[in-house]
Every structure is written in C-alpha cells, then in structure tokens.
C-alpha cells in the first residue's frame, strides 16, 4: 500500500476513535422523560419498551454504519488485493521472462552459431572441404551439364 494511504487511514482511525469516545461519553442512551412515561404505562412488554426508549432506532443506526463500513472495506480491500496481485504478477513475469529469454537465446546460439562461423570462415581466408575455388561461371556451366548424356531418373 502507498505510504500516503497508510497515513490517511491512520488519521481516519484516530478521528473515528475520538468521535466514538466523545459520543459514548456525551450520548444520552435513554431520555429520562421517556423512562418516566414508560414507568407510568401499563403496557410494558420488551418490544414496547425498546420502541419507546429508542433502542430499535439505535440498533438500526449501528447496522447501517456496519453496512457502510463493510462496503468501504470491500472497495478498499478490492483495490489492495488488485494492487498486490499486479505486483506479484509483474515480479513473476519478470522472473519467468528472464528464464525463457536465456533459454531461447541459448537455443538460438546453438542453432545459428555454427552456420555463422562457417560462413564467416568461407568469406575469409580459412577454407574447409577443399582448397580450390571455382568461378561462378564454371559452377553454372557444370550445373547445366550435370545430367548431360541423359542418365535416367
């Protein structure tokens, strides 16, 4: 992950922690007037009490926040996983490409070098097979008369 993102998330976490702390310290979880009304009421089942003092709203808000956080985590998680996968793929590709390039270069040298060396030898003073060098016209003349006299196929 980039250093900038690390710093950003660190800051975000600190702000969040301060926010939550202040919320817990100052928040009136139950309004005292609501509680008094409830005590006076005869209909006091659990659901009714939860609705009256606002507990269900609180649960809804927490669930909503949890959903939002999960969504954000999914987005940033996806980006992070993608970046790591790309980095890993790049490193692996470089390693494999290097190996293949070396192997291919070796194979190409094995294939081509003898021919190149032989050709260069022939173009210079060194010779093989035999020491003479017929002219092009002699060679063409000889080729034209290779099967003169009509040997069968």
């Amino acid at each position: 992950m980039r250093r900038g993102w690390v710093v950003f998330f660190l800051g975000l976490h600190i702000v969040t922690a301060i926010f939550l702390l202040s919320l817990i310290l100052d928040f009136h979880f139950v309004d005292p007037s609501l509680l008094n009304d409830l005590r006076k009421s005869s209909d006091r089942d659990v659901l009714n009490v939860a609705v009256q003092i606002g507990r269900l709203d609180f649960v809804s808000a927490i669930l909503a926040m949890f959903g939002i956080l999960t969504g954000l985590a999914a987005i940033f998680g996806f980006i992070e996983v993608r970046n790591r996968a790309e980095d890993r793929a790049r490193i692996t590709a470089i390693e494999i490409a290097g190996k293949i390039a070396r192997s291919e270069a070796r194979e190409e040298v094995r294939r081509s070098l003898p021919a190149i060396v032989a050709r260069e030898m022939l173009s210079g003073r060194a010779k093989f097979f035999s020491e003479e060098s017929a002219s092009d016209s002699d060679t063409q003349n000889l080729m034209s008369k290779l099967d003169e006299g009509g040997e069968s196929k």
Partner: protein
Amino acid sequence: MRESELSFVDERLKSAPIDVVGIIKELGVKYEESPLAPGVDGRIDFDGSDYKITVNSEQSQQRRNFTAAHELEHYLLHRDLLEERGHLDRLFDAPGRQGPAKPISPSHEAQANKLAVQMLMPRQAILNEMVWQDYDLAKIARMFVVSPEAMEIRLKTLGIDLNHERSQKQKQAVRA
C-alpha cells in the same frame, strides 16, 4: 547437434560415391523427394525445431543429388537466415532471373552452389578414385553420379589432367 558438423561432413567426402542423402539424414535433417511445382528444384524448411529438405522427384538423379547438396549447404551455412516460411530454390531453370527470397541473397546461393559442387565431387575423392578407375573420365563420372561433361569441368577447375596423371603413373611404374 553434433559437436562439429563440418568435420563430420568432411569425413564423409573422402571417397566415392558421395551419399548426400545419408549425410543429410545423419545430421538429423529430414529428407523427402516429392513432386514440386514446375521449375522448383528443392526447398528447405524450418518449423521452429526441425529442418526438412525436399527435392523435386521429377528431376534426374544427378540434379536431385546436386539439389540435395545445395540444400544441405544452406543448412550448414545459412540456417540462421532461414525463417519459418522456408526457402525455395530454382537452380537449373533460368538461373539468375529471379533472386532468392530475403534474407538469402544471390551470393549465398552462389556459395551454396560452389560448395555443392565440391561436395558432389570432392578433390580428394577424385584423386583417389581416378587411380582406381584407371583415369577413365566416364568411369570416374559414373562413380560420382554425374555426367562426363560435368566431371570434365570439375577436373579442369581442380587443375587435374587425366592424361598427364596417367602418363606420370606409367612412368613411375616403369621406374619401379
């Protein structure tokens, strides 16, 4: 691949008859004779791993041998220039009118022709064989599977005079 292909080939050129097809096969190159388009004498192909020489089966034995030797020279000297589409040769019909496909150049073709001649009729093999064949041009030519006319040209380029060689031999025999 052999450690030294050229040495191997050189060893196989010491005595007649020269088995060009045998040399090709022993070098691990595939060889085939089959009908090719009119005017086409042979071709050499590379499929990325193997080489294959194809010679026109419609030609005479002498021309087939020469074409095989020519393609073998391409393999020995120019195989780094052969691409996967292969290389096609028109050796005997209207030579020079149409240049070879790049990257093979006319000088490469001339080089392959010259060495094919040297391969079919090597100097040392001729020197050995002319003694065994009693300095008879026709017999020597038959041993190398070429026409007497072609052998005559070859002897001329090598500076070998059969009559002179015969008389020298006879003189030595008389002395002995």
